[in-house]
């Protein structure tokens, strides 16, 4: 198994830490893992992404250009990466942020109303956790409990009190994905 995922959005939407949770989760589950952020001044443009690869054998290149899954937090990211989903792969996006939804028909597409859910949870900052919950429901790369464990690694000590809320957000995300996931 090798799962190549890119998580992309605006800076500040928590895309890097969503990726980090996925990666740390992999470490906890003894997978081979690589986490590769976009870096450098293109970040000035306000976008950020990271590529996470989880596998059971040493990771080949940490930078790849086609993905098993794309998680898009905004329109530019969706526009940029829709074509990069491998046939049969997954495109998961934050519903509210997207005006022009994806059009591909050879992949699974899931729209997650994560921002709305986060607001319901009274903290917009956990949008990314909702997305992660949804993503893990769709792609069981790591167990949801592992993601919770990863939170202890990724969050600085002073934020550990927020972990219960994050856990809720993860759950909520999972609930938002209904039914069986198959490529349509």
């Amino acid at each position, binding site marked *: 198994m090798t799962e190549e995922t890119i998580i992309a959005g605006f800076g500040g939407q928590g895309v890097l830490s969503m990726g*980090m949770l996925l*990666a*740390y989760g992999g*470490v906890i589950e003894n997978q*081979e*893992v*690589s*986490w*590769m*952020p976009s*870096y*450098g*001044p293109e970040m000035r443009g306000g976008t950020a992404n990271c590529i996470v690869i989880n596998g059971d054998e*040493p*990771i*080949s*290149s*940490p*930078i*790849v*250009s*086609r993905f098993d899954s794309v998680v898009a937090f905004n329109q530019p990211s969706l526009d940029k990466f829709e074509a990069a989903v491998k046939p049969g792969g997954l495109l998961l996006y934050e519903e509210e942020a997207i005006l022009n939804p994806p059009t591909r028909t050879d992949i699974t597409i899931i729209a997650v109303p994560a921002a709305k859910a986060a607001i319901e949870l009274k903290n917009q900052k956990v949008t990314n956790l909702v997305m992660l919950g949804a993503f893990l429901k769709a792609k069981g790369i790591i167990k949801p409990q592992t993601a919770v464990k990863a939170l202890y*690694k990724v969050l600085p000590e002073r934020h550990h009190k927020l972990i219960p809320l994050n856990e809720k957000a993860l759950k909520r995300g999972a609930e938002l994905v209904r039914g069986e996931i198959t490529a349509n």
Partner: protein
Amino acid sequence: MSEVLFMKGNEALAEAAIRAGLDAYFGYPITPQSEILEYLTAQIPKRGGVVLQAESEVAAINMIYGAAGAGSRVMTTTSSPGFSLMQEGISYIASAQLPCLLANVVRGGPGLGTIQPSQGDYFQATKGGGHGDYYMIVLAPSTVQEMADFVYLGFDLADKYRTPVMILADGALGQGMEKVTFPDYDPAARKIAKPWATTGKTPDRERNVITSLYLQPEKMEELNLVLQKKYNTIRQNEILWEEYLTDDAEVLFTAFGLAARIVRKTIQLAREKGIKAGLFRPKTVWPFPYKCLNELAHQVDLIQDIELNAGQMVEDVRLGVEGATPVFFHGRMGGMIPTPEEVLEKMEANLATVRGRNGRPKEDVR
């Protein structure tokens, strides 16, 4: 064995340096390796040592020259344009026989280029980017784990041979996070005496002089002979490489660093298709493992060299192979990274030519 951590290559390198007993770091920010300086400015005040942000790479390498000459375990790191600026200083350090650790977290050149990963500085690292006849020991990590491991090795080799050692990494190894563990290493036990260092001329010894100046050509030739002798010793003792599935290989890939990881995947794909492919990965790109490669060359139908550049290590490959088998090159540049599939395709096309050209069916090849 110690805990499995998950770190950026840059951080792993910095952390390993501290654990290896780094006395002083001098450096200047540049993407994609600024995390090293950042990590050290955060850690060193708590853990002891000196960390100083220099006004430029030129200043940084000369601070290294000073602190190394004064007997300390020192390191600087930078990325491609910064490494070019250090060439004069590196030539001085090699000539004055000072131990130190350098790292180039390579980005795509030439010029300002891009900050994406590349292997375009292989020539500069291995053939002497600076003036005069000198070499550095050049370690080429392929994983974040090696980003850490080669720091210990690098410091030890530097001290042992009184020579600069460099780590030739790339932006992806620097920026990406992978699992890493740190070995037990006791710097106090590993650091060796440096009686030649400028620590103050006590009455029991002559003054120590750090210099590379010998106006008399006879004297300068003597120094050069000392250096060349040292380089030969290193060539004999310190060559490191890795082989992957070479035993039965009919096709040999050569690649270093990040490229070698892609090739490993290609080899799996090739073997799935029934092509017996293997990998030869130099870990020291200087000294280059010519001899061992030459032996393998006689066993295979072709060598397919893969690099993230326009073809640099391939010259060393050809020097090793000496015509024993055809050598092909495929590379991507400017921060582009080939896919395992692309690599496979290139190799297969070349294999067809070779076997076609030889007019021999596959079975007859060897």
